[in-house]
C-alpha cells in the first residue's frame, strides 16, 4: 500500500531526474524544463502542478508509471502485484541482461509495467500502467505475464480493468517470445470480456507495434490523451516504405479518433473524473 512519492517535493525532484534520463538533452539540471513542443522553459513545479501538462501549449509530457499512478489512483489504495518479477534473457541476446540492469536502476522499477489493484474515485479497478522509460515500454515475457495475470485476477474477482499503455511494441531482445505475449494478453482480455466485465484501455504516448496490435486496441472503451502517437508501424518505417514524409498529425490521437479507432480524447487533468463517470454509468460499486 503506498503512494509512490513521499510528498510533492519528491515528485518534482523525481520528474527532473526522469527527463535527464530520457531526453539526454543538455539543459542543466535545475528548476526549469523545456517543453518539447513549444520550446518554452517552464518551472518544473508548474508542470507537476498541472498534471504534467505544459500550461502554455497543452503538451502532455510522457509519464512514468509511478507518476501516472499518482495522478489516477486514490491515495493509499494501490496494492501492487508481481513487483519483483524480472526479465531473464531467453535468447541469450548479447548485452540484454546489462541493459535490463541499467534500466532497472534508472527507471527505479523492475519492468516496463506496474500492475495491481487500486481505487479510482472509490471504484475498485485492476490496473496496469506501462512505463515508456523502461526499454521504451517494450513488451517481453514479464510484461506479457504481468498484464495477463492482472487481467486474469480481474476476471476471477469480477473487477473492471484499466490499462494505460505506452510502448514501442514487442521487445526485440526476447524475439518470438515477445510476439507470443500479444496472443497471451489478448486471450486474457477475451476471457475478461466474456465475463461481461468492463475494460477501459487508455492509450498514452507513444503506443505502437505489438502493444497497439493487441490488448490496447481491445478495450470496451478506448481513450487517449491529446497528441498521442498511436500506430501499428512506426512513422519512420512507413516513411521508408512509401518513400515520402508523413503529413502533420498522422497517427496522432486526433487522427485516430477521426478515423474511428478511439472513443474519446481526454485531457490528463480530466482523466480521473472521466473514468469515474464511466464507472458510475456502468453501475460499478463505489466505496470511498
Amino acid at each position, binding site marked *: 500500500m503506498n503512494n509512490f512519492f513521499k510528498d510533492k517535493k519528491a515528485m518534482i525532484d523525481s520528474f527532473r531526474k526522469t527527463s535527464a534520463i530520457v531526453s539526454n538533452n543538455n539543459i542543466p539540471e535545475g528548476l526549469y524544463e523545456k517543453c518539447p513542443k513549444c520550446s518554452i522553459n517552464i518551472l518544473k513545479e508548474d508542470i507537476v502542478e498541472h498534471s504534467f501538462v505544459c500550461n502554455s501549449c497543452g503538451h502532455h509530457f510522457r509519464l512514468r508509471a509511478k507518476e501516472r499512478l499518482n495522478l489516477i489512483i486514490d491515495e493509499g489504495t494501490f496494492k501492487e502485484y508481481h513487483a519483483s*518479477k*524480472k*526479465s*531473464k*534473457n*531467453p*535468447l541469450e*541476446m*548479447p548485452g540484454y541482461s546489462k541493459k535490463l540492469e541499467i534500466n532497472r536502476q534508472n527507471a527505479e522499477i523492475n519492468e516496463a509495467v506496474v500492475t495491481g489493484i487500486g481505487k479510482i474515485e472509490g471504484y475498485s479497478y485492476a490496473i496496469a500502467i506501462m512505463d515508456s522509460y523502461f526499454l521504451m515500454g517494450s513488451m*517481453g*515475457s*514479464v510484461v*506479457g*505475464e504481468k498484464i*495477463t495475470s492482472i487481467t486474469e485476477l480481474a476476471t476471477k474477482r469480477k473487477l473492471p480493468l484499466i490499462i494505460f499503455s505506452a510502448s514501442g511494441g*514487442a521487445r*526485440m*531482445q*526476447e*524475439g*518470438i*517470445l*515477445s*510476439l*507470443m*505475449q*500479444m*496472443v*497471451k494478453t*489478448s*486471450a*486474457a*482480455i*477475451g*476471457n475478461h*470480456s*466474456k465475463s461481461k466485465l468492463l475494460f477501459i484501455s487508455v492509450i498514452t504516448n507513444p503506443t505502437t*507495434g*505489438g502493444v*497497439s*496490435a*493487441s*490488448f*490496447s*486496441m*481491445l478495450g470496451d472503451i478506448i481513450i487517449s490523451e491529446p497528441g498521442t502517437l*498511436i*500506430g*501499428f*508501424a512506426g512513422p519512420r*518505417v*512507413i516513411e521508408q*516504405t*512509401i518513400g515520402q514524409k*508523413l503529413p502533420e498529425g*498522422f*497517427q496522432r490521437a486526433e487522427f485516430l479518433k477521426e*478515423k*474511428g*479507432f478511439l472513443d474519446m480524447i481526454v485531457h490528463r487533468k480530466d482523466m480521473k473524473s472521466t473514468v469515474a463517470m464511466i464507472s458510475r454509468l456502468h453501475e460499478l460499486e463505489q466505496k470511498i
Partner: protein
Amino acid sequence: MTIQELELKIKEIELEASQVDKDTKDAEQKKLEILSKIRTMEKEVYKNLTPWDKVYLARHPLRPNSIFYIHELFNNFVEFCGDRYFADDKAITGGIANFKGIPVTILAQTKGKTLEDNLSRNFGMPNPEGYRKTLRLAKQAEKFGRPIITFIDTPGAYPGMGAEERGQAEAIARNLMEFMELEVPIIAIVIGEGGSGGALALTVSDHIIMLENSIYSILSPEGFASILWKDAAKASEAAALMKLTAQDLYNFKIIDTIIKEPVGGIHKLTDYVMDQISIVLSTQLDIFAKMKKSTLLQNRYKKFRDLGKDFV
C-alpha cells in the same frame, strides 16, 4: 559457404561444363566428374544450414506459394473474397475446400509468383481488410462447424499509410482475441516467412506446423539489425541470434510439428513434403474432432498462456 554462394558456384561450374567439347573422348567422364563435384558441395552446404541460409530458403523464388499447397492438399477449392467493409485483399486467399472428405475453411497468406502477381498481392503483406476477411471467413467456418487450416507466408503486415488509416493494429488485435475463442479446430502451417504480428494474426491455433526451412520471427532479420544496430546489412548476424528456425521454435514449445524438407528445400521434391503435411493434418483433425469443444478451447488458451512463463 552460404546457399547463395553455392548457387552461384554451381552456375559457374555448369557454365564451365557446357563449354566442354562434346566430341572429345572423355567428355562423358568429365561431365560425371563435374556433377559429382556439385553433389559433394551441395551435401556439404546443406548438412549444416545456418539460420541465415534458412532465411534465404524461406524466401527462395522457387519455393511454392500457398496456392500450390491449396491445390496439392485439397480438392474442390472455392475461393471467397472480401471483408464486406472496404476491399478484397489478395495478400490473403480465403475459401473452402475438401480435405479427404471433410469440408474445411482455408485462410492463406499468399505471395505472388511473378512481378505482376506480386503487385496484386502486395508481396504477401496484408492490409487491415485482409485480416478482416480472415476473421469473417473464420466466423463463417465456426457457424458451419468447419475446421480451419491457415497458411503463413508473409514478410509482415503492410506498413503503409492506408493500412494505418484503416486500423492495421485493431484488425490484428481483434484476430488474436477472436481466434482464441473460435469453437472449431484451427491448424496453422508456416510454409515460408512468418513475419511479425502480420504472421501472428493467422497463427493462433490448436496445432502449429512449420516446414523445416521456414522461419517465424518477431521481425525480419534486416529490420531487427537496423533497430538494434542501426545497420540492416548485419541481417545474417541478426538471424543467428534471433532464434527464428523451426527447431528453435519447437524448443520454445511455440510450434508442435516440424515437417522435413528434401535436401535443397521443398522445391526440389514437393510430393515428399505434401505427403507429410497431409498425414499430420489427418491425424490432428481426427484428434480434434473427438475432442470436446471446451477442452479444445482450454488447451488452446493454456498453450499460449504458458509461452514465456519459463522466463519470468
